[in-house]
């Protein structure tokens, strides 16, 4: 039973990871790509890790999987934030069809 639930989590995680990578290819500019990369890849990888935890239980690899989820949730948004801010400061433009850029207006 545990194995079935674990595999469901792993398959869902792989599907989300796939959408995240597809977003990296399809989205037009850096900021939109970061959106896909942070959200889908974070939850996808967390899903895979949680599936591993359910299958293996309280074993060395299960505990490691849980710790990986914790580190990933803490670090992935921070890295995305640093990338977005650095890109904007060094002059990477938003997609030309973007609605507004309040950050650019307030930069002076």
């Amino acid at each position, binding site marked *: 039973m545990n194995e079935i639930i674990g595999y469901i989590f792993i398959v869902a995680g792989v599907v*989300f990871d796939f*959408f*995240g990578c*597809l*977003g990296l290819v*399809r*989205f*037009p*500019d850096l*900021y*939109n790509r*970061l*959106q*896909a990369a*942070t*959200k*889908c890849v*974070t*939850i*996808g990888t967390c899903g895979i890790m949680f599936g591993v935890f359910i299958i293996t239980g309280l*074993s*060395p690899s299960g*505990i*490691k999987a*849980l*710790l990986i989820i914790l580190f990933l*949730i*803490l670090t*992935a*948004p*921070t890295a*995305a*934030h640093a990338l*977005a*801010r650095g890109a*904007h400061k060094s002059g990477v433009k*938003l*997609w030309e*069809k*973007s*609605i*507004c*850029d*309040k*950050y*650019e207006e*307030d930069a002076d």
Partner: protein
Amino acid sequence: MKTKIVLFIVAFIVWLGLTWSVELLSLIVGVGVAILVAFLTSDMFTPLRNKTGFVSKVPEFKQPVRYLWFLYYIPVFLWECLKANFDVAYRVGHPDLPINPGIVKVKTQLKTELALTFLANSITLTPGTLSVDVDKEKGYLYVHWINVKDKGVEGATRIVVEKFEKILRRIFE
């Protein structure tokens, strides 16, 4: 010194979780690594006075209500996170790529660094939003939004920030 001891205990617990064994050798190595980590990183956790004389406030950690609100925050956050993923997956999979992006400015009432960190991370992991920068003195966050519904400060604040801010204020401030 107090910071170092707390850091040592936390690092040692993480080590125990990572190795998941109680052999003597691994415990000895763990104590050594934890001491090293505590000494190397304790500066980062002490509230330092910066150039403007601002001391980062350390929140009250002894009130149990804060932990209950934190427990309530976890399912709210996970639910938002899941919705965000279906939203982005839908936009990626749609043949016309229905996105409407832009960077908006939102206002926040939170003041402490820890609360702002949690707010920015929560915004990044939830529907279509990604925090780009924070203006701590004026209390503004700049947020990249994949589907801008409201360009104004108030409207964007209501949609993006409010649901987390209510809870985070009770946890950290």
